[in-house]
């Protein structure tokens, strides 16, 4: 008899623990109610992972975190898995307000503030690797800080510039831009050829280019720039550079 009572209490305790564990919302989780007919739950954040559960209409769930286009959710029953953001169009918060998980798109691209760019190019025969940090003041005008490293057969160079970029037609699918800037070019001839010193010249920069929104936070960008080096030698030097790269807006 007493053994049975003990067993009973043990079972009750287990049940209570179990329910308490399953029902307590995880930290930093957002509680929402599902109003879609059903939603598939995957074991991982990818389309190929197995679907092991389906969420029902009216079910309460907790949104835990997000990775790319997937959200990790957990239910009252203690089931945890990944759900597509596209399937979570109909979720509502505690005050019956709709909860959305924004996916960056073209509109965000047009209203961006800061962007970070990476590029690959040809700097007068040398392969170049570039990085840009830009800030957009208006739809048309932005400023950029640019750094490029070029590695060539006869010399390596580094350029650091500030530039103003004007996009006359920011709404076009392929939007052209014009650029004016200034900076310094540091040229170091390869030591194996002749022993020479590094040269540091002031440079004027003009350029034209074209930008297009790729997807999400990314824009593709092609550019042709002319560096006019104000050297201390007899003649000034002109360097033509083309670049292909992409911008990530932050």
């Amino acid at each position, binding site marked *: 008899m007493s053994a049975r009572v003990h067993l009973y209490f043990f079972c009750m305790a287990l049940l209570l623990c179990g329910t308490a564990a399953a029902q307590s919302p995880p930290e930093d989780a957002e509680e929402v109610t599902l109003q879609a007919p059903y939603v598939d739950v995957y074991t991982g954040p990818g389309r190929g*992972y197995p679907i092991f559960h389906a969420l029902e209409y009216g079910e309460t769930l907790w949104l835990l975190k997000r990775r790319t286009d997937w959200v990790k959710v957990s239910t009252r029953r203690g089931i945890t898995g990944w759900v597509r953001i596209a399937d979570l169009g109909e979720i509502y918060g505690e005050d019956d*307000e709709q909860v959305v*998980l924004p996916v960056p798109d073209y509109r965000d691209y047009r209203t961006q503030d800061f962007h970070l760019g990476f590029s690959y190019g040809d700097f007068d025969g040398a392969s170049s*690797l570039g990085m840009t940090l830009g800030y957009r003041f208006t739809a048309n005008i932005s400023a950029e800080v640019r750094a490029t*490293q070029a590695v060539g057969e006869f010399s*390596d160079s580094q350029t650091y510039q500030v530039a103003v970029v004007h996009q006359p037609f920011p709404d076009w699918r392929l939007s052209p831009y014009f650029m004016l800037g200034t900076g310094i070019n540091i040229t170091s001839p390869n030591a*194996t050829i002749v022993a020479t010193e590094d040269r540091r010249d002031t440079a004027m920069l003009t350029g034209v280019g074209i930008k297009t929104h790729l997807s999400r936070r990314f824009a593709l960008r092609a550019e042709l720039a002319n560096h006019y080096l104000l050297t201390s030698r007899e003649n000034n030097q002109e360097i033509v550079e083309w670049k292909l790269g992409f911008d990530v807006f932050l």
Partner: protein
Amino acid sequence: METGFRRFSVIIAASLLASAAWAQEDDDILGEIISPDLERREIREAQIDSENFEITVFAGGVMNVEDFGSNPLYGAALAYHINEDVFMEAGYGQTELGESSFERLSGSAPLLTDEQRELSYYNLSLAWNLFPGEYFLFDRWALNSNLYLIGGIGSTDFADEEHFTYNVGAGVRVLAKDWLALRLDVRDHIFEHEIFGEAQNTNNLSAQLGISIYF
């Protein structure tokens, strides 16, 4: 005369009132038709964390630099996951060059100083998660995984020279937790150098084991 004026003013007033009332009625009808009987629904963004960045520390690595032997490689990488298929990664690594076979065999003075033997590289690459899947460990665990192809451009610095470098490779990522992964990455760093007098294109292989954290 007076009654005529009164009648006139009464007619005017009545017609004005009637038209006003008519207009009022008209407004109501239109209003009923036009004004939507819907409550504006509030919308807000979900307050949850995004874990699209991944930082990796490569501790157990080895890099073979053509003619200079294989040496331990240390490095780190920062990746941004664009979607479930594609991520981009900025990487950095450093190793030391050994003695070249020329230096060993000829017995002449070393070609490079110790400082010039320190090699470091950085690169920016784009990767494609070609085979996402799961690894099964005994009966108990199913670990999410990715096999990815990766390639990019960068720069390798040694012997006081920068060398423009292409890299291609493949890697495997096994996720122990949602935020913690083990990575094995094999890469070919392709660059041209002129240390032995004439320009030569070299393939330099590296393999590195790393631990990464998503945040």
